[in-house]
């Protein structure tokens, strides 16, 4: 373990660590363009030059390994001067069109030229080399003039997706990045190109001109798109989610995120959200308060007793599922979740990067909490034979499954917690408005049994409430209060009651999640697929 000194502070790092990583660990930011923590080192931008004592010339921090007794100065006069000179070269042909560039505010070039006071370019606009602008590459817009030729996108295409779409073309001043024949990007990780690009050369088409980034407030969360559970930032302004962006977690998604996941913010602010409770009247729906709807459901559950059934949703958080399970157990009712075999596709990958076949974020959490109990088929059979008098659904997804429709039709009372309006809700007797993943606190357990935290980024629409709150409301009406008033308290109860979760709380889960020991009871077939 070599020990080195960076800007007067000592740090001991494993052998082979580069100076830039050691500095990151100390919280010292060395300016960079081409270095990215999850891409191989290229060392082409020369921006990270630092002064190392006893070395005659400046070294690039990204490709210099720490050795015993090394003394590094990142902010010395010599290092600053070299960085400034590098920036001047980069600014020769840069258009400095920050007012119209979406990257402004999160642009390495802008940040660094401001640090060095290089507000204007020394080259007249007319003398700059003109390159291709406004090239539509499908999900990405390319502006080659803004490019600093760091090759991050090229390395991303080579190392992460393996698609090799980008390459440098031409030489010298005229070098620019391009896809082959300007073809569009056709893989599902295009959004990451806009993220890895340190400047405004590659920008997201979806976010184009929508918002200036300095207006956005970020909230740490987890993508609900599949069982991988990528860590994300939910970027929001005034209660409206504007975009999702990957949050680095070396153990889960590194710095990446898929495009289908990125698009999930669009389902949050739509007008088709269920914003109020309603019950089926004699002729049509009647809008009621959530409390009145809960009264109605509680009355039906009391009447049905053990002739009721509960179907949980793997879209719900652990807290939701735990409260739902407590509700089912209060009446001695049947309980399960999801149609089909949940373990089957939980860990199955559908590409080589991140996406998994199970499109639910919390199937593992449902399994851990023991919700898979009576079997969905058995419950549906009971429904068909008319032995079930009340059915409570934690999510409406199940109502879209054809094999479920006829079974549900036989049940006289169906309550469903729903986030979005849809024709399937017409099969219910009571509709309860539920908050979406970005509107509630909670945790998901991903396919690797890693518990990760979600945070409420925006308020839910209208009367919508987290599903655990709805379940807790029903428990209160049944005379069996849950004993928790916040998601944090529900999780503490859950941790006490669930095997493998003992000793966990939100603090222990932290920002990047907490892996649980592998479950011994998991089937060997599941492990083999992984």
């Amino acid at each position, binding site marked *: 373990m070599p020990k080195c000194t960076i800007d007067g502070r000592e740090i001991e790092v494993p052998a082979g660590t580069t100076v830039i990583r050691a500095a990151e660990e100390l919280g010292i930011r060395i300016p960079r363009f081409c270095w990215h923590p999850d891409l191989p080192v290229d060392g082409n931008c020369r921006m990270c030059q630092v002064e190392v004592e006893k070395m005659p010339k400046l070294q690039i921090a990204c490709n210099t390994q720490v050795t015993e007794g090394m003394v590094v100065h990142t902010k010395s006069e010599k290092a600053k001067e070299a960085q400034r000179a590098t920036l001047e070269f980069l600014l020769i042909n840069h*258009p*400095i*069109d*920050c*007012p*119209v*560039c979406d990257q*402004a*505010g999160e642009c390495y070039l*802008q*940040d660094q030229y*401001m640090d060095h006071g290089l*507000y*204007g370019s020394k080259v007249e*606009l007319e003398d700059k080399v*003109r390159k291709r*602008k*406004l090239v539509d590459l499908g999900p990405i817009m390319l502006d080659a*003039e803004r490019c600093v030729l760091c090759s991050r996108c090229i390395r991303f295409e080579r190392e992460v997706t393996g698609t090799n779409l980008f390459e440098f073309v031409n030489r010298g001043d005229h070098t620019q990045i391009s896809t082959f024949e300007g073809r569009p990007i056709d893989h599902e990780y295009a959004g990451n190109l806009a993220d890895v690009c340190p400047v405004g050369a590659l920008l997201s088409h979806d976010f*184009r*001109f*929508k918002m*200036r980034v*300095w*207006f956005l407030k970020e909230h740490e969360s987890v993508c609900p798109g599949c069982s991988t559970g990528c860590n994300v930032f939910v970027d929001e302004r005034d209660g409206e989610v504007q975009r999702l962006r990957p949050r680095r977690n070396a153990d889960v998604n590194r710095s990446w995120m898929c495009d289908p996941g990125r698009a999930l913010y669009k389902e949050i602010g739509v007008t088709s959200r269920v914003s109020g409770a309603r019950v089926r009247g004699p002729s049509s729906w009647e809008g009621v308060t959530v409390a009145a709807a809960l009264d109605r459901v509680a009355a039906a559950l009391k009447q049905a007793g053990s002739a009721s059934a509960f179907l949980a949703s793997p879209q719900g958080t652990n807290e939701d599922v735990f409260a739902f399970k407590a509700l089912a157990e209060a009446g001695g009712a049947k309980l399960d979740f999801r149609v089909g075999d949940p373990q089957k596709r939980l860990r199955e990958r559908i590409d080589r990067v991140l996406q998994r076949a199970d499109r639910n974020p919390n199937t593992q959490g449902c399994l851990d909490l023991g919700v898979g109990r009576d079997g969905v088929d058995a419950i549906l059979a009971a429904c068909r034979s008319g032995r079930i008098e009340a059915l409570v659904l934690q999510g409406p997804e199940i109502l879209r499954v054809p094999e479920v429709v006829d079974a549900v039709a036989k049940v006289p009372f169906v309550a469903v917690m729903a986030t979005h309006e849809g024709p399937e809700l017409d099969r219910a007797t009571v509709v309860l408005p539920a908050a979406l993943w970005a509107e509630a606190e909670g945790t998901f357990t991903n396919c690797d049994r890693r518990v990760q935290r979600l945070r409420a980024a925006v308020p839910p629409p209208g009367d919508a409430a987290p599903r655990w709150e709805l379940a807790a409301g029903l428990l209160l009406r049944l005379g069996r209060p849950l004993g928790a008033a916040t998601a944090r308290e529900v999780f503490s109860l859950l941790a006490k009651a669930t095997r493998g979760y003992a000793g966990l709380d939100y603090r222990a889960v932290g920002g990047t999640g907490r892996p649980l020991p592998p479950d011994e009871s998991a089937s060997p077939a599941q492990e083999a697929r992984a």
Partner: protein
Amino acid sequence: MAASVVTVDRNLKPGVTPILKGFGVTLKAFFDSLFRRKASTIEFPEKKRSVSSRYRGIHVLTEREDGTPKCVACYMCATVCPAECIYIEAGERPEATIEKYPTRFEIDLLRCVYCGFCVDACPEEAIIMSRENDLVGTSRAELIIDRDRLMARNELVEHGTGYRPADHDVRRPVRIAALERLKAEHGIVPGMPGTRS
């Protein structure tokens, strides 16, 4: 007409004399305005006082020669605005040399504090101020002034333009305050816009 300053002697003893003196002043003003046309008031709104060429009145969105707004929807004005009275939506204009322009640009004139920061922050001279200051409307909605009305104000000649970048020196305290607010709170410095060949 410039207003004159009247000195008042507050040490006068109470009695009839000060009252008569006061009436004297009133009578003098009455005859002055009646026969000598020396009134201190003007016949507003037919006549208006002239104000400084750096007066900060209602905003104007300037336009290019082809009639399109100079604004590139960079949101600098909306960012720096202390009253948060500027609302912008940006759109794409593929055929033009600068691809971004405001599809909506609204200023809530009732919220505006007329500080002129927007003019200072603008990298394009796209927003300037006029000398117009009589703001009248029958509803609040009417005084939220949209892009087209802001641009139509270009034709207002009777008031003349007010505060605009051509008048100000970069060392002027207002401009420095505006730029420092942008830099300190948002970490940005308005640069020059790019054009396409």
